[in-house]
C-alpha cells in the first residue's frame, strides 16, 4: 500500500477556496440561464477571491512559526500568506475590471473559472517548498493564463498573444525544469531547505552542475517575472491580451514570480549567495535599462505599461538582490501598491478602449482626465505611484528598496535605481500630459457624444486601487509590521 502523507488542508485552503469557486463557475456555464450567467459567474469568482483573502488572513494569523507540511512539499508561513493576500486582492480587482469588458457570451463561465483557477495556482506556487510543487504551481497558473490571453478568439491580437505566450512561456518552463533536474542531479534533493543542507554537507558550493542548475532556474523565473533579458514576450502579450487579463498578469504573475524567486534563492541557495545576488543585480539593471528606455518611445499605452512593468521587475529585483530582511520587507511592501496600480492603470485603459472602440494611444487619451474625472484622477495617482512620487505607496516602496540595497552596501545599485526613476518620469508624465494638458480640440479629435458608460464595478475597482495606492503611503506602519513578520519566515 502506498503511504500517503498527512495533509494540512487549512494551510492549502486559500487555493482550495479559489478552486471551488472555479468549479462552480464552470458548472454555472452549463446550468444557469443565459441572462444570469454573467452576474452569477462574476459573483462566484469574486466570492472565491474574497474567500481566499479571508483564508489567507486566517493562515497568517494562525501561523506564528514557519514550517513545512504535506511531506515537506509545501511551506506554511506568513511570507506565503502575505503573497496570497496580494494575489487574491489582485484577483478581486480583476473581477471588477472584467465585468464591464465586452465578452462573447459563450465564454463567460470559462473566463471566470480560469481566472479563479489561475489565482488558486498562484496561491499554491508561493507556498512551494520543493522543486516539484514549484513546477506544478507554475504550470498550473501559466496554462490558465495562456488560455485567458487567447480567449477573445475573434481578435487576431488576442490569438497571437496567446500563442506567443504559450511558446515562450513553455520555453521558460522547460528551462526551469531542466535547471531543477540539474540541481537534483547535483544534490540529490528536491526540497528547498534539503538542497541547502546537502550543499553544505557535501560541500557542493563549487559544483558546476549546481551552478548551471541555479542559473537555469533563475532564468525560468525571470521569464515569468518578465525581467530583461527574458522579457521579449511581454510587450506583445500585454498588448494583445484582453486588457483585464493583462492587468491581472502584470500584477499577480510578477508578484508570485518574484516572491518565489526570493524564497527559493534564500532558502535553497544560501551557500551561493555571493553568486546569485550579483546575477539578480545584473537582471535588475538590465530590466531597468531596457524597460525604461524602450518605454520612452512607445505611443500605445498598453505597450508603454508593459515596458513599465519590465522596469518595475527591475526595481523589485533590487530588493531580491539585497538579500536581507529589509529587502524581503521592501519586496512585499512594494508589491501591495504596485499590484493595485497595475490593475487600476490597465482598467482605465480598458475603459478608454471601450469608449473609443480602438487601441488607446497617448494621442487619443487627450482630454480623458477632464471627461472622466474619477478615472482621470485615479490614473493620475497611478502614474505618480509608478514614478515613485510622494503621497503614493510607490514612493515608499522605492524608498524601502533603495534602503535595502544601501544596507547591503550597494550604493551603486541605488544610483542605478534613481537614474532609472528619472528616465521613467518622462513617459509616466507623458500619460498625465496627454490626459490633462492637451485638450481634445487642440488635436482636432471629434468630441465623443453622449455620456460615458456607467461601469460601476470598474470604477469601484479603480477607486479601490487608488485608495490602496495613497493609503499605503500614509498607513505604512501596519503594512511594514505585516511584512516584517512575514519576512522573518525567510532565513535571511
Amino acid at each position: 500500500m502506498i503511504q500517503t502523507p498527512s495533509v494540512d488542508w487549512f494551510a492549502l485552503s486559500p487555493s482550495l477556496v479559489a478552486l471551488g469557486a472555479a468549479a462552480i463557475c464552470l458548472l454555472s456555464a452549463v446550468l444557469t440561464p443565459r441572462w444570469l450567467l454573467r452576474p452569477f459567474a462574476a459573483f462566484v469568482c469574486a466570492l472565491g477571491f474574497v474567500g481566499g483573502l479571508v483564508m489567507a488572513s486566517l493562515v497568517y494569523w494562525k501561523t506564528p512559526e514557519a514550517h513545512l507540511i504535506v511531506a515537506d512539499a509545501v511551506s506554511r508561513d506568513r511570507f506565503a500568506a502575505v503573497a496570497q493576500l496580494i494575489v487574491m486582492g489582485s484577483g478581486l480587482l480583476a473581477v471588477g475590471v472584467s465585468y464591464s469588458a465586452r465578452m462573447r457570451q459563450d465564454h463567460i463561465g470559462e473566463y471566470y473559472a480560469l481566472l479563479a483557477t489561475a489565482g488558486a495556482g498562484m496561491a499554491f506556487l508561493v507556498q512551494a517548498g520543493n522543486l516539484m510543487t514549484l513546477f506544478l504551481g507554475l504550470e498550473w497558473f501559466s496554462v490558465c493564463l495562456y488560455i485567458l490571453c487567447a480567449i477573445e478568439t475573434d481578435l487576431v491580437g488576442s490569438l497571437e498573444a496567446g500563442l506567443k505566450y504559450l511558446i515562450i512561456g513553455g520555453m521558460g518552463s522547460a528551462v526551469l525544469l531542466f535547471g531543477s533536474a540539474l540541481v537534483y542531479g547535483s544534490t540529490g534533493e528536491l526540497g528547498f531547505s534539503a538542497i541547502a543542507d546537502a550543499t553544505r554537507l557535501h560541500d557542493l558550493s563549487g559544483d558546476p552542475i549546481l551552478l548551471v542548475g541555479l542559473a537555469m532556474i533563475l532564468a525560468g523565473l525571470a521569464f515569468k517575472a518578465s525581467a530583461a533579458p527574458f522579457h521579449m514576450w511581454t510587450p506583445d502579450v500585454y498588448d494583445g491580451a484582453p486588457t483585464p487579463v493583462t492587468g491581472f498578469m502584470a500584477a499577480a504573475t510578477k508578484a508570485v514570480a518574484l516572491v518565489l524567486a526570493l524564497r527559493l534563492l534564500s532558502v535553497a541557495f544560501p551557500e551561493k549567495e555571493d553568486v546569485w545576488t550579483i546575477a539578480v543585480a545584473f537582471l535588475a539593471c538590465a530590466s531597468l535599462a531596457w524597460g525604461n528606455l524602450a518605454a520612452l518611445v512607445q505611443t500605445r499605452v498598453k505597450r508603454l505599461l508593459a515596458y513599465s512593468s519590465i522596469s518595475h521587475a527591475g526595481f523589485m529585483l533590487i530588493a531580491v538582490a539585497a538579500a536581507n530582511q529589509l529587502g524581503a520587507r521592501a519586496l512585499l511592501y512594494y508589491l501591495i501598491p504596485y499590484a493595485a496600480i497595475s490593475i487600476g492603470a490597465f482598467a482605465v485603459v480598458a475603459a478608454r478602449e471601450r469608449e473609443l472602440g480602438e487601441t488607446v494611444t497617448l494621442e487619443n487619451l487627450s482630454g480623458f482626465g477632464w471627461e472622466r474625472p474619477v478615472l482621470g484622477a485615479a490614473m493620475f495617482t497611478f502614474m505618480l505611484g509608478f514614478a515613485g512620487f510622494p503621497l503614493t505607496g510607490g514612493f515608499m516602496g522605492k524608498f524601502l528598496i533603495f534602503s535595502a540595497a544601501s544596507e547591503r552596501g550597494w550604493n551603486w545599485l541605488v544610483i542605478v535605481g534613481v537614474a532609472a526613476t528619472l528616465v521613467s518620469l518622462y513617459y509616466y508624465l507623458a500619460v498625465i500630459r496627454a490626459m490633462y494638458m492637451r485638450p481634445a480640440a487642440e488635436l482636432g479629435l471629434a468630441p465623443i457624444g453622449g455620456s460615458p458608460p456607467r461601469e460601476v464595478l470598474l470604477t469601484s475597482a479603480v477607486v479601490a486601487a487608488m485608495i490602496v495606492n495613497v493609503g499605503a503611503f500614509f498607513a505604512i506602519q501596519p503594512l511594514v509590521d505585516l511584512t516584517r513578520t512575514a519576512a522573518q519566515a525567510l532565513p535571511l
Partner: protein
Amino acid sequence: MSSWLATILVFLPLGGALLVWLLPVGRVAGPLALLIALTEVGFWINGLTLIDFDRTSGPSFDQQTTWFSDLNVSYHVGFSAFSFWLAGLAVVVMAAAIAYGFWVGRERPRAYFGLMLFLTAAVVGVFASEDLLLFYVFFEAMMIPLYVLIGVWGGPGRLGATVKFVIYTMAGSLLMLAAVIVFGLSSGSFDLVDSNPSNSTWLFLGFAIAFAVKAPLFPFHGWLPDAYRESSPEVAAVLSGVISKAAIFGFIRICLGKFPGPFDDFRNVILALAVVGLVYGSLMAFRAPDVRGVIAYSSLAQMGLITIGVFSLTSMGVSGAVLQAVNHGLISATLFLLAGAIERRTATGSLNRLGGMARGRPALATVLMVTGVIALAVPGSSAFAGEFLILAGIFGFGWGWAVAGATGIVLAAMYMLRLISAVLHKEPGPAVSDAALDLRPAELGIVVPLVACLLALSMWPAAISERVGDENTPLFPQKAEFPAFPGSVP
C-alpha cells in the same frame, strides 16, 4: 494648542484641497480656497505672537510621532526662527496668488484651487519639516501641483517648459533621495535634530545640487526662463517668490546643519557660482526683451545674492540672507502679479510694445514704482538692509566677494530702472491702448498688502534680521557639541 500650530499650518490647506476637489460645486471653489488661504495667514500671525525667537533648545511648535518604526522615520515638524519667516512668506504669497487666480477666474476652478492649496501645504511642509524623509516628501510633493499648474493653465509653450522644469528639478532631487537614504541609514535616524552630522562630500553634493537646481544657482538655471514665462502670472509669482526659498531652507538646514565640514570645503566653489549667477542674471535681466524675462533673470541674480549671504557663514550674512529671501519673495511675487495685470491689458509682455502706461493710470504707476524702487535696494528700503547685511557678512570672509556682490546691486538698479521706464514712461507703445484700464480695486486689494509688507519691513528690517539667530541663540536646533551659531566655526 501651540504645539499643534505647525501641524495645522501643513494640514489645513491639505484638507482644504481635498474639500475643494470633493465638493461638486465649481463656483464655491475659489472663495473657499481664498478663505482657507486667509485662515492660514491668520494661523501664521497667531504663531508670530506665540513663537519664542530666542529659544535655545529644540524647534518651536515641536511635534513628533513615529511614522514608521522600521527605519526610524518620524513625522516631526516644528519651526526654527528662520524657517518660520520663510513659512510666513509662503502663506502670504500663496494667499495673494490664490486671490489673483480667483479674480482672473481660472477655468476648471475645482482642480485649479485644489492644486493651489495642495501646493501651499507642500511648501509650508518643506519649511516645517524636522525629519529628512518628511522634508524630501514635501520637497517632491511641490512638483506635482506645479507640473499640472504650469502644464494646464500655462501659456502656449507650456508643454516644453514643464518637461524642462521636471527633468531639471527631478534630476537634482532624485540624487538627493539617494543621499537621504544613505545619510539616514548611516546615521541611524532620519531626524534632523537627532542625527549626527556627516563628513561625506558625496552626500553633501547630493543635497547641494538638488538645492542649486531649485534655487536656481548659475549653471543649473536652464529651466528658469521657460518656466517663468510660460506659467500663469500667479504661478510664476509663487515659483520665484516661494518655491525657490525651499532651496535656501535646504542650504541652511541640511547642507549647513548636517555637513559642516564639506560646507566649508565647498564654500569657495558655491560662492563663485553664486557670484557668477548674480552678475550673469543681472546682465541677462538688463538685456531681456520682456517684462517677465526681466523679473525671471533678476530672480536668478537675487538667489545668487542670498546664497552668498548663506555661505558667508556669519550671523550677519545669514540673517541678511533670510531677510533678503523674504524681501525677494514679496518683490518678485508683486512684480509677477503686476506683469500679469499688464499682460491682461496689452496682451503682450514685450518691452518694445509697451510704454507710457503711467499716464492716466496712477495706481499702476505708483505700485510698480514703489516695488521697483525697493527692488533696486535704494537706501532705506528693506532690500537695502538685506543686501547690506549680506555684503557686510561676506566682507569678513573676503573683500573680493563683497565687491562682486556690490556690482550686482549696481546692475540691479540698471535693469529695474529700464523695466520701469520701458513700461511706465516713454511714448505709449503700440500695444497700449487708451482704453487699457488702471489697476482695479480688486487687483489693488491683492497687490497692496504685499507692498505694505515690504514697506513695513523697510521701516523695521530688524524685525527679521535680529530674530534669526546670533552667537548666543542657535540658527536652528542642533546637538550640544556644536557651536550656537555656525559663524563661530573657526
